[in-house]
């Protein structure tokens, strides 16, 4: 079993490719790995209850830990206590800590 850190900086309102990255997170966790999907920049936009919130929530339901950069949420006025199901606000420090722990890290 490996640990994966998938960092998504883009959002599904703008890019079709985000669905691929969410799907990759699901496939990795279903293959038995531990996966964190860390949303940064506009990648946090589907954390707000919205037409794309279900896509993120389904990734969380599959067993992926879904975190959203607390600064990026605040920058966009997304209330950290009203996020899409399964998404938690987190400090960007988590990314550095997971890198230092050797998690395989992919930025999208």
């Amino acid at each position: 079993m490996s640990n994966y850190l998938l960092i998504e900086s883009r959002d599904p309102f703008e890019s079709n490719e985000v669905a691929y990255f969410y799907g990759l997170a699901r496939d990795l966790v279903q293959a038995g790995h531990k996966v964190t999907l860390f949303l940064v920049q506009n990648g946090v936009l589907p954390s707000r209850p919205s037409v794309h919130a279900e896509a993120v929530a389904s990734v969380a339901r599959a067993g992926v830990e879904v975190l959203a950069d607390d600064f990026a949420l605040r920058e966009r006025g997304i209330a950290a206590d009203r996020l899409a199901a399964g998404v938690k606000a987190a400090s960007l420090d988590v990314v550095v800590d997971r890198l230092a722990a050797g998690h395989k890290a992919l930025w999208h």
Partner: protein
Amino acid sequence: MADKKQLTFVLMDPPYENARTTTALRLIDIAVRRGHDVNVFAYEGAVNVAFAKQAPHANAVHGRDVEQEDHPNPKDWVAALFAAAAERGTTIDWVQCGLCVDERGAGECIPGLRRGSPADLVKFTETSINTLVIPTK
């Protein structure tokens, strides 16, 4: 404080064009504050992040003079990261891809950076515990 590790970041974006530059510098700042040694491979437009001739300006739309606007120049953020690392006894090894510097005329950068090549990036992958590529789009 975390155990000291060596982390490598690969940057590609020039300053002032998108959010990735800020996020990359935030990550490096966190890594420095956590006491890690950091390698940076600045590829393509990222060789301009620490360009020495960046200058602040006023902001007439907001009625602010140069001093009041205190406009960021990423070269100063990079210099501050180097200073923070020095204070903590850790290192930042920032390599500018040489061919990228040449084609962009970006040779004048702040002190502390060095010119290099993809061979440096290969060495970084071997000495670091991990590497994060932040690609441009």
